[in-house]
């Protein structure tokens, strides 16, 4: 994990604040194709860039990882999950979800014994993933436009701003203060490779089997994000597009 100094952090927070101001006027609800994508043309260019990075780096790395023993893949997956626990605990607490915060804290503390590579709480209750974008949503901040960021992929302005805050405030960064930067920095590409390997077929399906990969990825993102914001409760079919199925 990178450890930006105080000035960089302040500049990033200022940038995020400016970005949030830009988000405030956008709409929040409705079908995913009609949702705010005012930068679609630029987004498509960045999406193409991200696909090229995937072609040359991520997909081959993920393919190699998938050829490794299952224990290696599972260990990395557990580690990626473990690294996100402080973020989940912090944001759960900010949203008043104290039980989820406690489960995430317990999970992080116990699995710290193995740096998260082994899940010592396997089979126990898992915390629901929470990030600062969700915290902003619970505070009533509007979602903003859809933005595809280089390397990070597509997300709403609110989620992207939340990602920046999580990146800066993540207590994991403080906890790894003594770890050399060269070691902690590799955790980002390793995490990306692990996630790519886990969802290898699903991502390849979007990439190679879609009529419009950009539109498919955007739709999937919105649905997944909406699910998180509903705390993974089922969608209300009567007030969504599904209501029109029987017309």
């Amino acid at each position, binding site marked *: 994990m990178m450890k930006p100094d105080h000035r960089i952090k302040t500049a990033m927070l200022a940038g995020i604040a400016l970005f949030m101001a830009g988000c405030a006027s956008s709409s929040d609800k409705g079908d995913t194709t009609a949702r705010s994508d005012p930068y679609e043309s630029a987004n498509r260019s960045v999406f193409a860039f991200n696909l090229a990075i995937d072609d040359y780096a991520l997909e081959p790395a993920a393919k190699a990882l998938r050829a490794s023993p299952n224990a290696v893949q599972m260990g990395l997956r557990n580690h990626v999950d473990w690294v996100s626990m402080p973020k989940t605990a912090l944001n759960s607490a900010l949203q008043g979800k104290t039980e989820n915060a406690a489960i995430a804290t317990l999970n992080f503390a116990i699995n710290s014994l193995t740096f998260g590579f082994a899940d010592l709480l396997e089979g126990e209750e898992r915390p629901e993933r929470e990030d600062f974008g969700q915290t902003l949503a619970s505070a009533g901040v509007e979602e903003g436009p859809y933005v595809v960021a280089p390397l990070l992929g597509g997300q709403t302005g609110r989620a992207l701003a939340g990602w920046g805050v999580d990146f800066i405030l993540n207590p994991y960064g403080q906890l790894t203060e003594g770890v050399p930067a060269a070691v902690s920095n590799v955790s980002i590409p390793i995490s990306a490779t692990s996630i790519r390997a886990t969802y290898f077929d699903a991502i390849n399906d979007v990439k190679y089997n879609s009529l419009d990969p950009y*539109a498919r990825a955007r739709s999937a993102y919105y*649905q997944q994000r909406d699910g998180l914001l509903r705390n993974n409760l*089922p969608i209300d079919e009567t007030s969504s597009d599904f209501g029109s199925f029987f017309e």
Partner: protein
Amino acid sequence: MTTNLGIQTRRGFLGLAAALLITNGWTQNALADRLTVAENHIGKLIAELREIEAMRGSLTSEKYRHLIALIMETYFDVEGITRFTAGRYWRVASNEQRNAYKEVFRGILLSEASNRFDQILTFSFTPTKAQARGDKLILVTGIAKDNSGQIPDTKIVWRVAAQAGKPMKIIDLEIENISMLKTQQDENAALIKRNGGNFDALIQAMRTRLDMINSQSKN
């Protein structure tokens, strides 16, 4: 007199309460039956797919596609799915466009299904609950477990159309909050929108895609 009226009123209330309890009980039983039928519908689909995949090696590709087509027609509301994925453009499409879309969409659906249903062998599905959503839809939720261990346990929701007087049919599969039906509808709508609202552009793009899939499966 007052006492008689009181007794009659009480009897009336008791009768109404009993009738309500019976009706409510009957409704609850009917609902439980519908939920069980929906869960069994999914169970039967998975069992049949497993059977077909188990004997795939001994089937010609034509026979295999024929069996998958039968499965699709038996268990899925292909007509409804076709219409829904065209979104609002369906309403303004001509009959000719509708028929062309139906044909090419069914072709892609069948080809994709034939290419993917083999994955059923590496997964096991355990239903966790079935819920009615209104009087036409049932959600069967469960966990898919990847037997190879490469993918973590995944939450799956099957949307089953359960309309009175009609056989139950699957209309959608949702994986970790991502609906296949909605995603396809959004992708189609985006493609039409990028082509200035031209429905034929989608049909043409789908034809090209279908030709590509068919040529890949021949090679």
